[in-house]
């Protein structure tokens, strides 16, 4: 599945795709830490880096735990940072349910490692200014998350989104 393209605004500064194999839980977080390093290298605003890092980590762990593998594309624009997550299944039946805090189908092996609070997707959504989750059961899931780089376009009128 390929995520839909947002309206083109600003100039694309950087683009890179990372692959996350199924069950790659031992070193999950490898993509997120790399993304963080890249964003800092590009001089992206610290608050934006923090939010994108959180979104990336949760998307990355979900691909590793729940899917047959997938990929993450990072796009840095002048005015925003975007992450696209896509995987090759199994897909999500009930999109409302997985957005509910506390809902988790994490297997025991993942729970032993501290996953399975059912907070990943809600936290991705909270840290993104635009969050689009699509899925085709049996096929796969695609998520697009956008974080604006300019304060006034950000969620919560620029005061950050910490609760």
């Amino acid at each position, binding site marked *: 599945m390929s995520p839909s393209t947002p309206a083109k605004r600003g100039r694309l500064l950087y683009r890179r795709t990372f692959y996350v194999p199924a069950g790659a839980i031992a070193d*999950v977080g490898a993509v997120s830490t790399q993304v963080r390093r890249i964003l800092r290298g590009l001089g992206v605003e610290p608050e934006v880096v923090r939010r994108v890092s959180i979104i990336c980590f949760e998307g990355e*762990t979900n691909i590793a735990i729940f899917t047959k593998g997938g990929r993450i594309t990072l796009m840095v624009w002048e005015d925003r940072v975007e992450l696209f997550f896509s995987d090759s299944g199994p897909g999500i039946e009930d999109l409302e349910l997985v957005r509910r805090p506390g809902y988790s189908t994490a297997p025991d092996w993942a729970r032993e490692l*501290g996953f399975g*609070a*059912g*907070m*990943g997707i809600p936290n991705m959504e*909270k840290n993104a200014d635009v969050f689009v989750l699509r899925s085709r059961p049996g096929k796969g899931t695609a998520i697009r998350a956008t974080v604006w780089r300019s304060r006034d376009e950000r969620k919560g009128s620029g005061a950050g989104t910490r609760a």
Partner: protein
Amino acid sequence: MNAREVARALGLEAVAFPHPEAEVEGGFCSDLLSRAMAEASPGEAWITYQRHLNVVAVAKLKELSMVILARGPEPEPEVAARAEEEGVNLLRSGAGMFELAGRLYTLLSRGPRNR
């Protein structure tokens, strides 16, 4: 109070200690990674029983000042190596999470102002 002072006061053993001067701005306890991702704040010390590679990733991404591994087996050498590489302070203790949290809380509530 910096990580070195906290480590000394709590008698922590260094697993990887690349930034002992990091300022410890508070503490956070959880064994759930996504809870730490959601609720820990930059500069906090994270007390946990988890001791695998993902802990280093969370600490790095959340810009935590240190991770304190509560009572349990020594972490794998690759965890220590990764913490060193990523610049994450990783320390361990023979004490449980409850005791560590209590002692850290007391230590930090004294605060730099009232010392």
